[in-house]
């Protein structure tokens, strides 16, 4: 990275930290620290909800996901708008009426303390672990780019964002998220425009989509059906997206304190609703555009030599291993393919817009065959990396976009795009730390502490809990190196727990006759079922959210017949 890029990066990050500290002034009590005194307008709620969901993982992995697997990942978000409606109709009125700090307080009022503690414990566990992965995501950028030690990079990175999160609470989180999201989306738009601008003369935006389409990557809507019927192991299709995605979004936005804590900062239920419904409107187009950058990068690499593997580190290890000769052979074969491609695409700009469709189809068909050859080589090199013992480094999805940025984008823009990744990470991590601290303070500390506490003490303790969770997430990040595609790792982890959490809340809202013992044991059994299904079957993880929620509702209904208890 050149000094101009460093300057852009440092100024952007320092600016955000300074802005976070400047916005830190909040009332020194729990309502001020965790809920920003419930005074936020809807557009800040919207940006905060979006900034919390879209982490660095979103911006690192999504273009890579589109590059390798196509646009179909966008279907994962199709259930989200319906979830926003259900939360606006059913969840919000109760949360606002009870003036809750955390969603889990409601479970004690409705059921009993053990159900509240179990669900808030699940939240702390899953959110703590996934936030650790979110700390790790931007850290691989620095270590990969600059050869910095990954462990120290994580420590430094996590430490910077903790500064304003601890000092400013929910207010600093919301205001910095607003600025972060504007810079992030601006940066991604500029990078998308630059990719198209860098295509050869005569090749435009539509042509790039046509090229990526011929390589099978414009598969935005897929049915999941094969000749043998519906494929339940297929991860992303319109059915798993709408049904599985709906349950996932409902549980994430309706029961995960990192999101509930964002819209509880709104000044009224009207502002919360507007924030959530606008999220339902803008989220899918935003995700679509981020994925589109991935297929544009793929089109770009048809005219420019692409690396055989986008993460350099495991390749360097192979060079000094017993696989060095096999690697050299593979690389020379790849060079031959690149040569063939160069020859082929030279004729492409002339024929892409011609009326001669036969010639165009023939060229695109040959290009597709060469792309398949390259994919075969990529599979071979992954096998080599695995055989060489680098089990965690055989997936380069997260490196694709980043490698493109560093290798091809102009000076200044590289620094901005690196800053974008950091800011996206900070936005979501800051909200997570704030919510982890609020659940620890409200659901555990205040629930069990017999001592009479004043506002000042609660405020100081809340800051300490925020700091503690920051340190915890940094420690988890140190062990996150073996997780493959990070966006999937986070979502898989969520799917283990979210369905069950949602099931408990659905019972609480809609099955009034079911009481604490039945729902508690239903939640335990539901969790066992979901995790067993993940390990012992090949059912796509998006379905686990639906399975968990439905299992808890059914089991609680059945178990209620066996528990004769007084109304709680």
């Amino acid at each position, binding site marked *: 990275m050149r000094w101009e890029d460093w300057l852009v990066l440092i100024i952007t990050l320092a600016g955000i930290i300074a802005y976070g500290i400047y916005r830190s002034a909040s009332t020194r009590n729990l309502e001020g620290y965790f809920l920003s005194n419930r005074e936020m307008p809807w557009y800040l709620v919207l940006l905060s909800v979006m900034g919390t969901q879209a982490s660095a993982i979103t911006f690192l992995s999504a273009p890579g996901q589109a590059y390798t697997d196509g646009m179909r990942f966008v279907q994962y978000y199709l259930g989200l*708008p319906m979830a926003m409606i259900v939360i606006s109709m059913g969840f919000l009125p109760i949360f606002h009426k009870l003036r809750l700090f955390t969603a889990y307080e409601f479970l004690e009022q409705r059921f009993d303390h053990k159900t509240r503690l179990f669900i808030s414990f699940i939240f702390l566990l899953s959110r703590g672990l996934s936030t650790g992965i979110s700390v790790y995501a931007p850290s691989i950028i620095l270590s990969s780019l600059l050869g910095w030690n990954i462990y120290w990079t994580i420590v430094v990175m996590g430490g910077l964002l903790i500064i304003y999160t601890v000092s400013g609470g929910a207010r600093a989180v919301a205001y910095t998220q607003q600025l972060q999201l504007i810079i992030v989306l601006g940066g991604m738009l500029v990078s998308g425009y630059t990719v198209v601008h860098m295509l050869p003369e005569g090749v435009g935006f539509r042509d790039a989509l046509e090229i*990526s389409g011929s390589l099978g990557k414009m598969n935005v*809507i897929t049915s999941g059906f094969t000749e043998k019927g519906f494929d339940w192991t297929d991860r992303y299709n319109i059915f798993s997206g709408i049904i599985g995605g709906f349950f996932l979004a409902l549980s994430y936005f309706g029961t995960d304190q990192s999101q509930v804590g964002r819209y509880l900062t709104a000044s009224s239920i009207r502002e919360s609703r507007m924030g959530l419904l606008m999220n339902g409107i803008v989220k899918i187009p935003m995700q679509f555009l981020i994925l589109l950058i991935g297929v544009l990068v793929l089109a770009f690499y048809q005219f420019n030599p692409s690396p055989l593997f986008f993460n350099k580190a495991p390749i360097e290890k192979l060079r000094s291993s017993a696989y060095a000769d096999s690697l050299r052979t593979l690389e020379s074969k790849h060079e031959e393919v690149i040569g063939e491609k160069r020859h082929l695409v030279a004729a492409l700009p002339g024929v892409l817009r011609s009326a001669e469709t036969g010639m165009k189809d023939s060229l695109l068909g040959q290009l597709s065959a060469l792309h398949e050859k390259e994919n075969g080589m990529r599979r071979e090199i992954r096998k080599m990396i695995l055989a060489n013992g680098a089990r965690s480094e055989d997936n380069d999805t997260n490196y694709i976009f980043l490698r493109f940025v560093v290798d091809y984008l102009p000076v200044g823009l590289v620094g901005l795009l690196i800053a974008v990744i950091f800011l996206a990470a900070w936005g979501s991590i800051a909200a997570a730390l704030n919510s982890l601290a609020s659940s620890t303070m409200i659901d555990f500390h205040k629930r069990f502490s017999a001592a009479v506490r004043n506002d000042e003490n609660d405020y100081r303790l809340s800051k300490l809990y925020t700091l503690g969770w920051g340190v915890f997430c940094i420690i988890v990040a140190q062990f996150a190196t073996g997780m493959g595609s990070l966006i999937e790792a986070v979502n898989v982890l969520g799917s283990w727990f979210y369905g069950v959490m949602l099931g408990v809340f659905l019972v609480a809202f809609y099955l009034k006759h079911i009481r604490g013992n039945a729902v508690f044991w239903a939640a335990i059994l539901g969790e066992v079922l979901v995790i067993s299904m993940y390990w012992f079957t090949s059912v796509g993880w998006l379905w686990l959210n639906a399975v968990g929620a439905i299992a808890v509702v059914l089991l609680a209904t059945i178990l209620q017949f066996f528990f004769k208890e007084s109304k709680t």
Partner: protein
Amino acid sequence: MENPEKPPLFATWKGWYLLVLAILLAEIVFFYLITKAFQ
């Protein structure tokens, strides 16, 4: 369970819910057309 506060633009929140659903439907149709056009 309806919010007594009046929503912007529409008389009730149902207007907003229908708008969100209509946009979702339009997006699915748009994505389907893109898939057809470029596959």
